[in-house]
């Protein structure tokens, strides 16, 4: 065994008692990351394990606005053992004058291929949907005051509510559902007037495939058999891609928040190692005196720290495994998806790696400093006045480890841009906090000796303790400050997003969207609304759905990557002249009655992002038909207003004869909304009205869930920060016991001493809070301005809560360790120090 290892083992015989904070900091950071990662993998595995049920079959083919052709249908029958057809669309459920948006799922006899629909009262689906009967979601029933046996209308036809829907197995199919579900037999829709040509609907063909089917081969064969059919294939391996992607993103984001927590923990780890090394100064000095080299001592203490870090990481991993298992039922209850809880090695390895790197980064600095100090300097170090930088080589290693950690986070999170920004943010925040701590100490030193503090002994004692040598100001401001910064950033962003959606959007957004307006209904629809004095404005546009398939002959996804414009189908319109308010910013709009080769006007910002230029050739697939159009102009389109906005506008002749409907937006006084809705519906029951406020509520709800999850992550960071605070308070307890004894000797009453302790804690906490607000507000401004492209406004309430909270947390941590100093008899303390 090497001398370093021997020394390390002997030193470790002393036990772990001085390392509680070290272990706790590391364990908490690792546990948070391990728990988030485990839950993320649990959900992903749950989704893939239940993929067949969630999808409603082994594979699914989806078409927009059309059903399968007989040839396509025959092909499905030829490869599958069973096929089920589902048509999904939005409509209005009507009872008397009451109307509510519903997401209709029209099914055949084979539905569901996998799993079962559960209803209340429990009925076999065949019976529940027999004839003109429907099964509706309890929310829809509540909105319309419906009970089982009551009647409601879909389009022109009445239906009887047979049962309420408790659960449907294939929830993965329904993406962003604005309305509660209505289940109905497809044949029963005859006579409703719904699903006419140009209506917006999706048809889904679920297939039960033989066990031997190669899913990739089946997908390739189908694509080859029906090229450019506009079909989308999904199979049981990725049954709910949207959900999976969402969970993945949220999970990755939370891991980044967890990394901030680990950085806070790192500060605690570093402080603990510094305290430990300070305590070991005589030992180190003695070892050096008897011939140990700097490297031997460095290695000996590195081994000790490595052993301790391994213990801390193991504790963290154990917590990271146990927490999701304990919280399993709660997580499962809150998610509409199956969760495969258990021990997942990959996220645990990821968390362990982060933990090990963090421990190394934060301990190398104090460790490296001991190597270069002479025995005599080490003795002097005990007074806390030494401030040596590590060697350049050590600094380079630390920098390298930081780069490795950030690189790993960027790679493993799958959101490299955000990871790099977050890491940059953490590093900048740490630097700012180091500067702030230095500033706070300098200011406190100045104030302590200024006339301002004279005659106020409690305040001057507090200022002296903050600004004087050997204080814990830096580690308190760093640990609490970073935790609060994360919380402040979340608070600022969340409050601003809510304000943007809740307050600003409705001011500009229309009250209602109307879809599925048939061309022959348009005039009457517009007349009804425009004649009403409470209607401010009605905008309308023809709309068809299409896919941007190719750009200059190359697959659009190859050119645009994952840009939202090429992700699935988009609304496409046509217009003879630029619609009112349109601003053509480049190129020229086509002449009136233009009938030449197709031309398209593209939204400027999106064109720039994708890299489309004037003169480029784009291929748009509308209802299975490819239209090659030349980009002849760019327009300014503001999608943030919630009004009518299309990425692509074609010249009318390009899509002449293509079946389509019209879309409209209604801007009206709020109290007139219900009346207007009834007026429109009375004329045309097939027109679907979507209340914008409902859509906003849905987004707000999703945002609320995200903010809540992030707040939990930030909470874990803050908890670690609090542990560091406790550590700092505990480490400073001996000094405070001494201080209190001296102060009592020279005449200070306990109240004065306590006030001084509380004041110094409050000063540091408030300083950390103020820096956190500045850093959080900067992060909030950056994200709102550059990512969300929305106005930023400083949110006072969240800021105030954080400053006060920070001060209270430090005061609490300080007071927890104030009892012994206050209770100690001066004689015993001072004589034991003699």
């Amino acid at each position, binding site marked *: 065994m090497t001398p370093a290892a021997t020394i390390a083992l002997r030193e470790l015989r002393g036990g772990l008692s001085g390392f509680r904070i070290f272990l706790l900091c590391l364990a908490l950071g690792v546990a948070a990351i391990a728990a988030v990662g485990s839950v993320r993998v649990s959900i992903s595995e749950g989704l893939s394990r239940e993929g067949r049920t969630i999808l409603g079959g082994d594979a699914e083919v989806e078409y927009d606005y059309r059903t399968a052709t007989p040839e396509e249908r025959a092909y499905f029958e030829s490869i599958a053992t069973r096929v089920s057809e589902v048509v999904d669309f939005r409509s209005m459920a009507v009872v008397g004058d009451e109307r509510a948006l519903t997401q209709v799922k029209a099914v055949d006899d084979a539905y569901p291929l996998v799993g079962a629909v559960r209803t209340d009262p429990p009925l076999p689906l065949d019976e529940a949907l027999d004839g003109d009967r429907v099964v509706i979601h309890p929310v829809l029933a509540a909105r319309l005051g419906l009970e089982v046996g009551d009647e409601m209308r879909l389009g022109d036809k009445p239906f009887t509510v047979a049962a309420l829907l408790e659960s449907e197995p294939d929830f993965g199919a329904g993406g962003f559902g604005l309305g509660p579900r209505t289940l109905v037999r497809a044949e029963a829709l005859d006579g409703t007037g719904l699903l006419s040509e140009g209506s917006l609907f999706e048809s889904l063909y679920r297939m039960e495939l033989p066990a031997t089917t190669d899913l990739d081969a089946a997908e390739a064969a189908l694509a080859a058999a029906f090229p450019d059919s506009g079909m989308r294939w999904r199979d049981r391996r990725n049954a709910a891609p949207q959900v999976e992607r969402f969970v993945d993103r949220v999970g990755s984001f939370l891991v980044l928040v967890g990394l901030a927590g680990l950085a806070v923990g790192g500060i605690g780890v570093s402080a603990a190692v510094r305290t430990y090394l300070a305590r070991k100064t005589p030992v180190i000095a003695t070892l050096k005196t008897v011939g140990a080299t700097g490297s031997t001592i460095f290695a000996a203490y590195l081994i000790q720290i490595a052993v301790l870090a391994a213990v801390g990481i193991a504790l963290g991993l154990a917590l990271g495994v146990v927490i999701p298992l304990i919280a399993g039922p709660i997580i499962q209850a809150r998610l509409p998806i199956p969760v495969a809880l258990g021990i997942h090695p990959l996220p645990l390895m990821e968390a362990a790696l982060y933990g090990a790197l963090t421990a190394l980064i934060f301990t190398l600095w104090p460790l490296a400093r001991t190597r270069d100090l002479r025995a005599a300097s080490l003795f002097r170090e005990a007074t806390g006045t030494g401030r040596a930088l590590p060697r350049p080589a050590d600094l380079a290693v630390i920098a390298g480890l930081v780069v490795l950690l950030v690189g790993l986070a960027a790679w493993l999170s799958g959101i490299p841009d955000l990871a790099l920004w977050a890491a940059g943010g953490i590093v900048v925040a740490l630097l700012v906090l180091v500067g702030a701590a230095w500033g706070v100490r300098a200011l406190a030193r100045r104030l302590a000796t200024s006339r301002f503090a004279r005659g106020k002994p409690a305040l001057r004692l507090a200022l002296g303790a903050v600004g004087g040598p050997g204080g814990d100001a830096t580690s308190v401001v760093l640990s609490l400050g970073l935790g609060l910064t994360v919380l402040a950033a979340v608070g600022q962003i969340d409050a601003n997003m809510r304000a943007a959606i809740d307050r600003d959007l409705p001011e500009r957004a229309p009250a209602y969207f109307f879809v599925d307006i048939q061309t022959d209904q348009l005039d009457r629809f517009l007349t009804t609304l425009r004649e009403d004095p409470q209607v401010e404005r009605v905008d309308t546009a023809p709309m068809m759905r299409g896919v941007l398939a190719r750009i200059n002959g190359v697959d659009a996804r190859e050119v645009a990557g994952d840009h939202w414009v090429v992700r699935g189908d988009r609304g496409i319109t046509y217009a003879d002249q630029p619609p009112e308010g349109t601003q053509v910013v480049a190129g020229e709009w086509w002449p009136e009655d233009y009938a030449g080769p197709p031309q398209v006007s593209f939204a400027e910002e999106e064109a720039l992002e994708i890299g489309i230029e004037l003169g480029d050739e784009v291929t748009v697939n509308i209802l299975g038909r490819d239209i090659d159009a030349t980009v002849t102009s760019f327009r300014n389109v503001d999608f943030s207003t919630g009004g009518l906005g299309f990425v692509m506008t074609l010249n009318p002749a390009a899509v002449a004869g293509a079946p389509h409907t019209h879309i409209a937006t209604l801007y009206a006084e709020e109290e007139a909304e219900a009346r207007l809705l009834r007026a429109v519906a009375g004329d045309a029951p097939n027109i679907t009205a979507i209340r914008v406020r409902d859509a906003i509520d849905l987004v707000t709800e999703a945002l609320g869930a995200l903010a809540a999850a992030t707040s939990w992550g930030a909470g874990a960071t803050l908890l670690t920060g609090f542990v560091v605070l406790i550590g700092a308070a505990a480490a400073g307890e001996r000094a405070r016991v001494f201080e209190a004894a001296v102060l009592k000797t020279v*005449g200070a009453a306990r109240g004065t001493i306590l006030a001084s302790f509380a004041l110094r804690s409050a000063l540091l906490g408030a300083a950390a809070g103020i820096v956190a607000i500045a850093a959080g507000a900067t992060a909030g401004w950056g994200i709102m301005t550059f990512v969300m492209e929305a106005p930023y406004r400083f949110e006072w309430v969240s800021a105030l809560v954080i400053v006060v909270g920070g001060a209270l947390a430090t005061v609490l941590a300080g007071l927890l360790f104030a009892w012994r100093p206050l209770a100690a008899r001066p004689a015993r303390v001072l004589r034991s120090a003699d």
Partner: protein
Amino acid sequence: MVLSLNDAALSLDGAAGRVDILHGITLDIAERQTVGLVGPSGSGKSSLLMLMGGLERATGGTVEALGRDLTALDEDALARFRRDHMGVVFQSFHLIPTMTALENVATPLELAGKRDAFDRAAEELDAVGLGHRKGHYPAQMSGGEQQRVALARAAAPRPDILLADEPTGNLDQSTGEQIMDLLFGLRDRHGATLVLVTHSMDLANRCDRTIRLVDGRLESEAVREAAE
């Protein structure tokens, strides 16, 4: 009497059980007297000094200072009593490390609500020859300098009683002598009663009275003629 102990006793509970430190100490010290407490290590001299300063609470008998029964006062009342009437000097100086020399000296004056605390502290530092070290922290000063700051701190409030617990114990002989000269000089200037714990008979002999303790009991007392 400035200090009056009547059958005072001190026992402490430690890990090894109860330990009797002082037994039946009866002692009166008059105004402006200087008293040296001597005896072998562990004889209880520092404990006796702590009882006199109210820094330790007697477990038997009474301890009176300036007519006040210290055993009847609570912690805060004792602190205020020391603030108004006592100055204490320790072997290990016991300065507050986060305060400069000037701040250390000014602290008891500030606690007493003196508006000119810093001016008086500066004067006191000048008096002990440390006018040029006012802004230094204890860690930046030598042992002798730290003890001079401690002396200035003890003397600054013009206490009636000065208690010094082996004030030269951590210093070399020459520095120790300078400190003792300063201590006696301060005492003479302010006219305080001085009680001094020391191992040095030379120092003890500078006092009006020398009291010897052995095993927590008063063994003998020598009174110099001038004091009588």
